[in-house]
């Protein structure tokens, strides 16, 4: 079944074509360039850029797949979670196309897309597995028992890991997006120069078993970096090496936190593998450390290609095709939802 996937929940406008679980094309018009000037995702700019990109991008995705618009047999579009204005651009385009062509449409949760991106490259993904989803807006652990069967095990209680990277980069004047900048700069720094401790939770968790040890929190680490920098500045100790050491130590703390939790979750749920998903999966230190930790624990570690970890429409098309094949359909009342968790 030839399915066109559309994704516009945040920074990126994306379109992709999937057929029988195989990727035929996968295009992304990134807005990083626009947002870099503003230091973050700006909603008005985001929706305007989505509007400019979506039609040419969808056409290009279809053309690159070697087919015509008339060959598309179904449309999958991200409906939640995300910025409402941005989501609506994709939804309106998808609904317009479904209306014009009479082809079925299905709304897809962006998070479910991320959890299944790995299947576009591997058809032997072991179940059950634990998925670590890390991005600018999310930091969560899921138990994935099968396609469509997810259980949220833990999540961040304040900032997402990607947000912490962005905010630390911004407070040190390093630019946007913060993740890649800190990843590069950390190579020149000593990850053990400063010690940032993992927070201890006083309250039980709202997800999973209620035990707080699978939850995350990055707000305290962010503040500790700020205070360290303020103290160094007051003593005239801020120089290039200091900043490199600071971000390397910050990255070390975040990566340790993420990988410790992921491996613990896998052990507790008797999962066979850990799958990494979300834009922060681009962080080289995180990839390396997760592979090491999994290997030490006898777990398989699956990290999809970078273009499938960041926001993309291929994962939406993949999930869409599965649901369309099951007979699931959305109607023209399909709408955007800002907050929508899965696996509760």
């Amino acid at each position, binding site marked *: 079944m030839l399915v066109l996937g559309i994704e516009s929940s945040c920074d990126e406008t994306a379109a992709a074509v999937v057929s029988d679980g195989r990727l035929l094309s996968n295009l992304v018009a990134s807005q990083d360039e626009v947002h870099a000037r503003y230091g973050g995702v700006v*909603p008005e700019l985001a929706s305007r850029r989505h509007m400019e990109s979506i039609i040419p991008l969808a056409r290009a995705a279809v053309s690159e797949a070697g087919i015509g618009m008339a060959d598309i047999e179904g449309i999958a579009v991200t409906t939640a979670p995300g910025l409402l204005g941005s989501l609506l651009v994709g939804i309106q385009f998808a609904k317009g196309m479904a209306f014009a062509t009479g082809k079925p449409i299905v709304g897809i949760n962006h998070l479910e897309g991320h959890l299944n991106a790995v299947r576009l490259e591997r058809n032997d993904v072991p179940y059950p597995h634990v998925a670590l989803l890390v991005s600018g807006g999310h930091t969560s652990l899921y138990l994935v028992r099968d396609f469509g069967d997810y259980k949220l095990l833990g999540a961040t209680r304040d900032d997402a890991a990607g947000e912490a990277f962005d905010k630390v980069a911004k407070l040190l004047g390093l630019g946007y997006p913060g993740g890649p900048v800190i990843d590069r700069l950390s190579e020149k720094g000593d990850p053990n120069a400063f010690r940032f401790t993992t927070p201890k939770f006083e309250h039980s968790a709202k997800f999973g078993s209620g035990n707080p040890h699978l939850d995350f929190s990055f707000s305290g680490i962010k*503040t500790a970096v700020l205070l360290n920098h303020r103290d160094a500045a007051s003593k005239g100790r801020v120089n290039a090496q200091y900043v490199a050491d600071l971000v390397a130590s910050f990255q070390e703390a975040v990566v340790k936190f993420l990988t410790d939790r992921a491996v613990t979750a896998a052990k507790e749920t008797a999962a066979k593998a850990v799958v990494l998903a979300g834009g922060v999966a681009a962080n080289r230190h995180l990839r390396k450390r997760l592979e090491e930790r999994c290997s030490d624990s006898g777990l398989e570690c699956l990290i999809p290609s970078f273009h499938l970890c960041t926001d993309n429409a291929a994962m939406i098309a993949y999930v869409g095709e599965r649901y369309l094949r099951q007979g699931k359909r959305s109607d023209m009342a399909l709408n955007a939802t800002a*907050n929508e968790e899965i696996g509760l």
Partner: protein
Amino acid sequence: MKRTVTSSPEETKKLAVKIAQDLKPGDVLALEGELGSGKTQFVQGLAKGLGVSENGYVRSPSFTLLNEYRGRMPLYHFDFYRLHEPLELDDLGLEEYFDGKGVTAIEWADKFPGALPKRTMHIKFEIVDEMHRTIFLPFVRGG
């Protein structure tokens, strides 16, 4: 103006729980202070005080710009951190929230003072050290 020093994130939350008892629909709180000064913690307390008991956490809306929670009245949690031009506020439909049925709390509200109604209560946060925060309230509770 009342000045309070809290000695932990938990204490900042507890202060907000108390303040939430006196809030009524249409109230707007502008939360002003640098990164890590306790603004999100404060909103977590407001949510608790307003009886929000959702299947989730009250998180930083820096990325989403608006998180909405249901308690005994709705809590609209905005964050202007990523915004740079007053024009960008247009898409958020602020007035509808201000005059709506719930309480609005805005982090980094001081970036766009012109966007706030006159009745806005400004709450300022300052970092003293790792654990302590000074919080300036525009009113004395119960006073």
